[in-house]
């Protein structure tokens, strides 16, 4: 189905033109006790239409890196570039935050249409687009509800389509399911897989869950903590479309073992450093 899926770690990036190029990115925070390196010489290429997951112990700078990709945080050195698409009106990126980032003072519909409103899309058009996306995740009848009237899982559906409604070149997801309970998380993971199959966006997905990374990603990037560096890259050679049942396959379990082999040591080291 996807010729690159079974090849080596960086094959995916080489097969298609790179959408995101991040080279030697460093982030240094000056503090009163001297500079603290949060991210050290981190490079990542993401191909057009690729789903890359970044996993690492807490404090490894993965969220910082995502924010720098989104232009919400400045990097100290290195280059970050997102290749624009053919339509200059489209935003380069849109971020999905945790579910509490849905604006509680706007209705579900207004939340989804927010990015379009900020880009001056006419009212009728942006409502039509927002309703189309609400329909796709089964939230049509909640269009005029307030986010506080929704459950956590429904709220995060709003958060996800709020980003997708902008039709961004790149979708950046910052631990979007981190605050959800385990069962809701599985449902939303399934939904994410379905939506991604339909849209084939370029995605950078930050998570602390290995299972989630393997299930969703074409590639899993591991990071070290203090300072954040590239630890290893794993290609996920599991055929799509995937579902929750993919987690029970031998290939999935084997890959999870390999990744934990590397990450487990790193997590233990990070914990020691914090204590």
């Amino acid at each position, binding site marked *: 189905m996807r010729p690159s899926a079974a090849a080596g770690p960086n094959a995916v990036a080489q097969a298609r033109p790179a959408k995101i190029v991040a080279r030697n990115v460093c982030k240094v925070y000056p503090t009163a006790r001297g500079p603290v390196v949060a991210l050290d010489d981190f490079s990542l290429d993401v191909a057009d239409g690729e789903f890359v997951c970044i996993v690492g112990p807490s404090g490894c700078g993965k969220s910082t890196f995502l*924010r720098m990709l*989104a*232009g*919400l945080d400045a990097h100290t050195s290195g280059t970050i570039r997102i290749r624009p698409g053919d339509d200059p009106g489209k*935003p380069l*990126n*849109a*971020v999905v*935050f*945790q579910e*509490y*980032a849905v*604006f509680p*003072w*706007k209705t579900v519909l207004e939340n989804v249409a*927010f*990015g379009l*409103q*900020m*880009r001056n899309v006419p009212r009728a058009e942006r409502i039509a687009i927002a309703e189309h996306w609400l329909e796709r995740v089964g939230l049509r009848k909640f269009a005029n509800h307030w986010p506080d009237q929704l459950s956590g899982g429904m709220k995060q559906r709003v958060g996800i389509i*709020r980003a997708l409604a*902008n039709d961004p070149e790149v979708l950046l997801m910052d631990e979007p399911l981190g605050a959800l309970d385990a069962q809701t998380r599985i449902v939303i993971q399934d939904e994410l897989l379905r939506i991604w199959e339909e849209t084939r966006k370029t995605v950078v997905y930050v998570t602390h869950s290995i299972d989630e990374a393997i299930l969703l990603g074409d590639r899993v990037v591991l990071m070290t903590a203090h300072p954040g560096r590239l630890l290893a890259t794993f290609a996920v050679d599991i055929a799509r479309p995937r579902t929750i049942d993919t987690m029970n396959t031998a290939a999935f379990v084997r890959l999870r073992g390999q990744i934990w082999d590397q990450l487990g040591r790193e997590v233990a080291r990070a914990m020691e450093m914090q204590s």
Partner: protein
Amino acid sequence: MMKARDLVPPGELAGADHDTPAPPGMGRPTILPALLAIIAGLLAWNGVLWAVALCRPLWWLALLGNFVAVVLLAERLGRIVPPRRRRAYERTLAFGFPVLALVAWQGIVDAGILSPTWFPQPTRIAQALWDLTVSFDRFSETSLFGRPWRMPAAFRESGLAGVWALFAEGHVWATLGRVAAGFVLGAIPGIFLGVIMGINQTVRLMLDTTLSAIYVLPKIAIFPIVMLMFADPFGEGPKIVVVALSVFFLMTINTMAGVRDIDPVFVMAGRNYGASGLRLFRHVIIPAALPVIFAGLRLALGTALIVIISVEFLRARQGVG
């Protein structure tokens, strides 16, 4: 459930300690004996104090005992209130108790325990209030509410101007007008500066200490100075300005705290989806801080009333103070 009640010997219930909560599922049946016990206790308490003629010297002790009994009674009743009557019950407690307190006050003063000079009975206060309402002070040309019963006649005679003249002589309207004017004049710039101090660290660092220092200054203390700044020191200007000042500082400090407390993720989301400048304010920062701003407005309204009444005590021909 019904069976369970029958199994409990009634004597045990009557003698039960008041503070023991009713066993679950048996709330309603066990209430009645407890209620009777409390009422009996209440009567016994007052009866004993009255019998030994200690009711007068120890009136506060009797009052305390009665208060405790009322609390216990209301609590027992609260347990058997069905859920759909819950709101009515809560409202009865909230408004019924002040009425009960007024009745007790009336009774204590009527019985000659407290002096009516220092604690005039509620009925006398109401009478005085009524007298003020219906009377017109010819010397200062004022009345409490502007003699509302004369308004229809005034309207027929000289139209809206006549009604306005009547409103203008009312103490209450004068006070409310000053509060409203001062409130608006103080709150708008206060919120404005508060938002700026909330988002801009430089402005905040430069102004925060000064504002906190001026904030604690009693506004009544600067009233004489404010008076002198105006061409007409006894006019409305100084009073409104003092109210506006107190509202301004409160709203600035409060709004600043509200804006600083905004979850940064909202601002990041707003910026990421293309909001910047004024639109970021309109769609993200202001609505995110609005709950705190409204809490501040509520506080500021109370402060404004306190300030205006103290100012009116000091220097006003007209007003509640």
